């Protein structure tokens, strides 16, 4: 008869995971119920407070005095700032818009490079964002020497879980079949401040000032400005350098209370090259609530363009990750030393570094693979190995999402081998005091933080 400890261990290794799509649907139901309850309760509170006020003569008098004072203060503020628009209200209106299009230009210049016109854009493009269908962009990269521009297109279609990038110069397109969690995380990631929604959201986190009212392209607008670099914190723009200075401006249509122009310039000090680098993004020509059709988000790809297909497992789970590790062991005879051999630095960079590792391997699987791809181009290799690479890409994505969700992941492929049944290969946090562990022999277990500390202490350095 087995001990309670062993049964407890079995309980610990039992796991439940949730699928992202129903997960979101459940939360949406909760959110609706919660919002309704909050509104209902606050209305009830207001009503009961009003009854209390109306029944009590002294409270009535005090409230009247407070209202008069508040009106006087409000009037004086109105006169001094001239501001009638609340940015939070603008953000709420932007969030209600079903689809919008706008143009965007990007300017780069640096203080020690002469002859480059800061007013001339380096990249410009048109964007179409729809809550229902996704995101689409046509980008033109201008040649600073006056040569020909290069054109590319990007489409993100959450309904089809697909992203497409077309390079017209190379006559090539990349089609990626993404996993369930990709679009949700992309949305949370505040990729940069250069879409109107993120621009506003980030500006609201800072102490901004009103620039007063003016006219822009015949439209009455009110301007806002912040110089607080915190507006870039949490966006990918914040990773580009140090000693950041920012000048971020927004003009809002007084009538519609929607953005008319967003303009942000920031300065990085490049320590390697010992010079200041300037970056300016301008968003303009907004069309709000434009009618869109799903077909607009299906780019037309000329037949003669070469394809590069990337597939991720539809659901990123612990089981896929283990499958990926099995494929790697078969291919390399061991685990890759560095997690970045599996997880590319950039989310869009799918360069299968693992193939370069396989070139040095002499396992039967590696020899078979090398024979299979002999004489093929990179494109041909990628497309031939789409299904073979999928579990490895799934493993990479699994680890990437653990990092994104701040689950405190760690990987010990450098010292742990497939024979090490008692050594931690991968671990991540599942609750306040518990970690999930994949051991060297690929069995899994949930352990307490204390138990994990003991296991990791025993790992070879």
């Amino acid at each position: 008869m087995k001990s309670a400890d062993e049964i407890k261990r079995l309980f610990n290794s039992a796991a439940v995971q949730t699928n992202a799509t129903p997960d979101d649907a459940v939360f949406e139901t909760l959110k609706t119920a919660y919002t309704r309850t909050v509104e209902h309760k606050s209305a009830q509170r207001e009503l009961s407070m009003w009854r209390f006020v109306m029944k009590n003569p002294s409270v009535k008098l005090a409230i009247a005095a407070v209202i008069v004072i508040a009106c006087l203060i409000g009037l004086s503020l109105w006169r001094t700032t001239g501001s009638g628009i609340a940015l939070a209200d603008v953000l709420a209106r932007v969030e209600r818009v079903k689809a919008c299009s706008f143009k965007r230009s990007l300017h780069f210049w640096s203080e020690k490079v002469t002859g480059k016109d800061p007013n001339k854009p380096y990249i410009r493009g048109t964007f179409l964002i729809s809550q229902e269908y996704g995101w689409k962009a046509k980008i033109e990269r201008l040649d600073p020497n006056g040569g020909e521009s290069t054109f590319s297109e990007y489409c993100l279609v959450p309904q089809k879980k697909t992203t497409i990038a077309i390079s017209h110069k190379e006559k090539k397109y990349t089609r990626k079949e993404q996993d369930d969690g990709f679009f949700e995380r992309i949305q949370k990631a505040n990729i940069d401040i250069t879409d109107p929604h993120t621009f506003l959201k980030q500006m609201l986190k800072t102490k901004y000032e009103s620039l007063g009212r003016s006219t822009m392209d015949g439209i009455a607008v009110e301007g806002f400005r912040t110089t607080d670099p915190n507006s870039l914190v949490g966006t990918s723009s914040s990773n580009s350098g140090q000693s950041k200075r920012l000048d971020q401006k927004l003009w809002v249509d007084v009538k519609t209370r929607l953005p008319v122009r967003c303009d942000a310039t920031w300065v990085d000090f490049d320590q390697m090259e010992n010079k200041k680098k300037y970056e300016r993004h301008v968003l303009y020509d907004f069309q709000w609530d434009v009618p869109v059709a799903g077909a607009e988000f299906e780019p037309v790809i000329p037949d003669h363009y070469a394809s590069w297909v990337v597939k991720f497992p539809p659901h990123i789970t612990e089981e896929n990750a283990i499958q990926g590790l099995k494929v790697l062991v078969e291919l390399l005879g061991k685990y890759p030393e560095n997690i970045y051999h599996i997880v590319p630095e950039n989310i869009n960079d799918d360069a299968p570094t693992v193939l370069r590792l396989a070139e040095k391997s002499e396992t039967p699987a590696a020899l078979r693979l090398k024979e299979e791809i002999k004489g093929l181009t990179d494109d041909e290799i990628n497309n031939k190995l789409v299904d073979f690479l999928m579990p490895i890409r799934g493993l990479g994505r699994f680890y990437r999402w653990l990092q994104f969700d701040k689950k405190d992941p760690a990987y010990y492929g450098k010292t742990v081998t497939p024979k090490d049944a008692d050594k931690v290969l991968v671990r991540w946090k599942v609750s306040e005091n518990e970690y999930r562990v994949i051991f060297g022999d690929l069995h899994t277990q949930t352990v307490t933080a204390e138990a994990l500390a003991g296991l990791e202490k025993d790992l070879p350095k």
Partner: protein
Amino acid sequence: MLQDKLLIWRLQRGSVDALRQIYDKYKVYLLKLAITLTGDACHSEDVVQDVFLKLAESYDRISVHGNLKNFLITCLMNRIRTLRRDCRRHQAAQFDGSAIERPQACRPDQWAVVNEQMQRIGEAMVKLPVEQREVVTLRFEAGLGFRQIASLQNASINTVQGRYRYGMEKLRSLLNSEVEK
């Protein structure tokens, strides 16, 4: 624990973000608890959704000084008991006896996906009498003390300890072969 208190405080002030954090923190925990108690992933999804709905609609009934985890566990236990009672009343398919859904048999809208060990535990647990199953689950999965379980079951500590002992004996014999693996 302090984090939970902060979450309750924010929830009571209308924060959807706090609701999201509570949901993310406890959904898997509650699903695991429910599956262990009912042996049925499908019913468990409904139960856990009901528990969160209860929280979303009655958030003002939890004291900031109260225990969020215990509130959710109590709601879960009550909901399962009500479902069990309804099933008996309507003489529908035996709520307790149905085998846990196998992960391969994925419904398109399936929320909870269980691993093999979870499936084995679910299958073994449904063979235990309801009271013993509750005690073993609350002790192992929820980490509650006998005093807390006694208060949830409205029974004496001695009775709860007896149920735990008998439950464990039966579970050992049921899982013996699995544990040896």
